[in-house]
């Protein structure tokens, strides 16, 4: 880089288009939502008056229940995914060798399929008269009615966000040099002790990143609960959509959105602090 006196640095110029996109088409819409959130319910004129009506409604009409459900389901999903994915991540780093690429591809694939198609696939599998039903009938086994229940929603959530737990874990576990494990064992530690003292401690960034990511995505998900869970459980994104669509209540929908957006943003900013320090050094 030549040392010239610049009015504006090159870096800034390069970042400018992205920054503008961000400001005009991300930040601006969010501000609009904030505006609508403080507009009286059921009006379409933004900020015709300043009002906290929507938030009162959220408390009184128990909308917060869907929010709590969303938190619970997201949390369960994250926990399940953590346990399910850890062995695969360990395998990808230490065991699979040349098969790693193919296996990675197989796990990445679902990301390139439309959500609704994936969820549809699960309903085909679990519906009465569907694929699982057919298979079990063939073996004369009883068919559990799983559709429209909470476990099914969890299956759907787990399915959709699996890659987002798996790959950060791979990054985290990849940080552990095998020699450290050998050294610990040489000094008297059992395999279990090594796992807790060495593996988990060093893979921590990966675990945290994967968990935060999965949590925030599961929290915001919209299709799983409606399509797989029916009316059993309503997640926050469903409520938002309902408010905007059927109820035509933009302000209410916006108020709900803000809550979700704030929680999501806080989690993501925490996540980026972890991402920033650790993984870019590795890269």
């Amino acid at each position: 880089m030549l040392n010239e006196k610049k009015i504006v640095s090159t870096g800034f110029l390069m970042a400018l288009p992205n920054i503008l996109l961000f400001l005009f088409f991300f930040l601006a819409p969010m501000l609009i939502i904030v505006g609508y959130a403080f507009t009286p319910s059921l009006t379409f004129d933004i900020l015709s008056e300043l009002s906290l009506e929507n938030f009162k409604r959220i408390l009184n009409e128990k909308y917060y229940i869907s929010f709590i459900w969303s938190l619970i389901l997201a949390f369960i999903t994250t926990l399940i995914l953590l346990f399910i994915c850890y062995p695969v991540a360990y395998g990808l780093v230490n065991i699979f060798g040349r098969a790693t690429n193919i296996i990675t591809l197989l796990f990445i694939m679902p990301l390139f399929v439309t959500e609704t198609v994936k969820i549809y696939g699960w309903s085909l599998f679990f519906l009465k008269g569907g694929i699982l039903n057919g298979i079990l009938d063939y073996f004369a086994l009883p068919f559990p009615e799983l559709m429209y229940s909470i476990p099914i929603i969890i299956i759907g959530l787990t399915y959709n966000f699996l890659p987002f737990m798996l790959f950060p874990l791979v990054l985290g576990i990849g940080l552990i040099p095998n020699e450290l494990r050998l050294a610990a064992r040489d000094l008297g530690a059992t395999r279990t002790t090594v796992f807790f003292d060495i593996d988990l401690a060093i893979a921590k960034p990966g675990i945290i990143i994967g968990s935060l990511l999965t949590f925030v995505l599961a929290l915001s998900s919209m299709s799983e609960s409606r399509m797989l869970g029916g009316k059993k459980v309503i997640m926050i994104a469903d409520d938002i959509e309902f408010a905007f669509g059927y109820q035509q209540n933009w302000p209410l929908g916006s108020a709900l959105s803000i809550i979700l957006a704030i929680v999501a943003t806080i989690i993501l900013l925490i996540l980026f602090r972890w991402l920033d320090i650790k993984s870019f050094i590795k890269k």
Partner: protein
Amino acid sequence: MSVDNIIGIKPDFLVLRSITKSYKEKLVLSIDELKIGENEFFSIVGPSGSGKSTLLSILSGVEEPSSGQIFLRDKNITSIPAEKRPTAMVFQSLSLFPHMTIGQNIEYPLKVKGIQKSIRKNKAIELLNTLRLNDEFYEKKITECSGGERQRIAIARVLAYDPEVLFLDEPLSALDYRLRKTLEVELKDLHKRTKKTFIYVTHSLEEAMIMSDRIAIMRDGKIIQIDKPEDIYLKPADKFIDNFLGENNILPVKTNVQNGKLKIINKEKNINDEILSPKNNKLKEGYLIIRPECIEFKKLDKEINSSIEITLQNDYFLGSKICYVADYNGIQITIERPREEKFNFKVGDKIKVYWKPSDSHFVEN
């Protein structure tokens, strides 16, 4: 290949018998017998691929041999895994735990045993001091330490385990020259103080010679010589070891059966020089090796000398000594003399040089 019985060291402390190791059908290590004494500083020297690291892994328990047994104080430890053996290793990369402080690193073996925090801390500080690091290091992180300091911390950690045998895998290879020299002396001193058996792997014969009681030299998965440092230096078992030792004079010779002298072989010209053979030589053909510092420019009185005439090509000043490079019918001859001996040689001079037959060493092809 003989195992010397060194006075004061209990032989048969650590014994390997018929050890082999193969990776995917390829034999990488094959040792008939290796005996290491208690409290010995034993080095294993060899280039990359000689099998020394494999041998170390097998000794420490990190790997299992394909066949053979290992005995510690007559107890068969071959199938005992690394964590249960009373041995500990300082890895080449040190393997210090990056997410723990130095104190936590050193205490780790004690923590694993379930020892109380306060006792652990005292022991850790004691070990820091033994390794000449002050108390402040206890709280520091690994990233705040230099290479030499990390080296010492790794050793302290291993000492906390209080093993009977300490393995060291090329611990000094990543350090600069001065640091290496300092630590070589310190390691030797540590060995004397802690009275533990040290098994040290390195590719530098020079380093091993400074610190060891005995050295085993490996090549291609086999041990080709085990001896005290002086013996290896003066009587290297073959030309290969010789290359290790730096500039050496190598004369191809053939025994003259009639008079017992050695005839120097030269493919291009016919040399009729004969030199004296070292005593009790039984070999017929091979190489005569003479260390540069054993060759002199004047006849050594009261002794019968070997001598040849050389042509001087160059000389170098090496601090406390001067190195002369000369030619003898196409063979390079190197001579080292102390700086104080003054000679007025010019390039191209033909000079006669002498050495004692007992300072020379005959090896086979």
